[in-house]
């Protein structure tokens, strides 16, 4: 009992610590601000530990953890949409000065996408997953991933082209 409990905690700690930068990037892409991303990461970590026994194969750990994080982001997004009008929080945070290295214009463009399209783009670029890997995480066919990615990137390309044109004028 003592050994298995300790071993369980150690295995989880290793997986979670290794995955946490990727998970945080994903959460930031999904939620658009560091505070919510950090909350989602913590919520996902605690939930994952509670259900860690259900993880059958060690190699399935990253996809499993990613799925839990995505759900935590959906929950976080829903809680936020009940309390904060969309767009308001982002403007306030920008005024407070977010870290400069992050491409906030792009992160905010992501926030305008429908949830499933945003998840697909974030998994593709922020976690560097392939189309079949995204399909496995989201439990949809490869074709669905491709059509979501196509719709999302076309829209983002249009938005960014427009904002560049507006910036030039």
């Amino acid at each position: 009992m003592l050994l298995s409990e300790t071993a369980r905690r150690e295995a989880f700690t290793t997986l979670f610590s290794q995955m946490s930068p990727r998970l945080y990037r994903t959460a930031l892409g999904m939620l658009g601000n560091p505070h919510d991303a950090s909350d989602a990461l913590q919520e996902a970590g605690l939930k994952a530990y509670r259900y860690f026994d259900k993880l059958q194969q060690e190699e399935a750990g990253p996809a499993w953890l990613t799925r839990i994080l995505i759900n935590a982001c959906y929950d976080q997004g829903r809680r936020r949409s009940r309390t904060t009008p969309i767009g308001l929080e982002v403007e306030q945070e920008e005024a407070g000065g977010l870290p400069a290295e992050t491409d906030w214009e792009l992160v905010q463009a992501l926030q305008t996408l429908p949830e499933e399209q945003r998840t697909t783009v974030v998994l593709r670029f922020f976690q560097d997953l392939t189309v079949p890997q995204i399909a496995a995480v989201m439990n949809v066919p490869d074709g669905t991933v491709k059509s979501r990615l196509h719709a999302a990137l076309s829209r983002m390309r249009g938005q960014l082209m427009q904002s560049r044109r507006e910036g030039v004028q």
Partner: protein
Amino acid sequence: MKPHAVGSACHRVQMELDEALATGTLALPAELALHADGCPRCGPEYRDTEALLSRLRGAAAGIELGPVPQAVDKVLDQITREAAPRVFSMVEASAGSPGAQHRQKQVRTRWILGQVAAVAAVLLIAVGGIGYAILKVNEAVSGVSPGDVLAKFASPFRFTDTAKIEKAK
């Protein structure tokens, strides 16, 4: 804008760009890239797609990971606290803070007392059950009811009490 003629270089570039939006990877064959670079019809779309994909890849790498260590620490602290009541390890108790050690000691004492009480209750029930079974067997063999046996067993004590009462009179 007029659709590109099927089979033309512009059309082939368009097909490649569609595939790039669906997979997130743009790899034009050299001769098509050369065409797109100088083509006023498909060139802008090619450059915008390439810019978007490279910006998405760059955005992931540029995300500030400042909040990650703190979020990970909070999760690991929390799961260590949750695990403490389940693990009665002296090693862990000596590693923790005095407050945590005191809490662990309290939990351990409560657990031991609970175990002792449970064993006592089981023994009491077992002794009662066995005694009753013996009395029933005795009744079947000798015809003496359990009540009579108990009365006979208790009579010496009653006699003493009566003698004391008589003496007091």
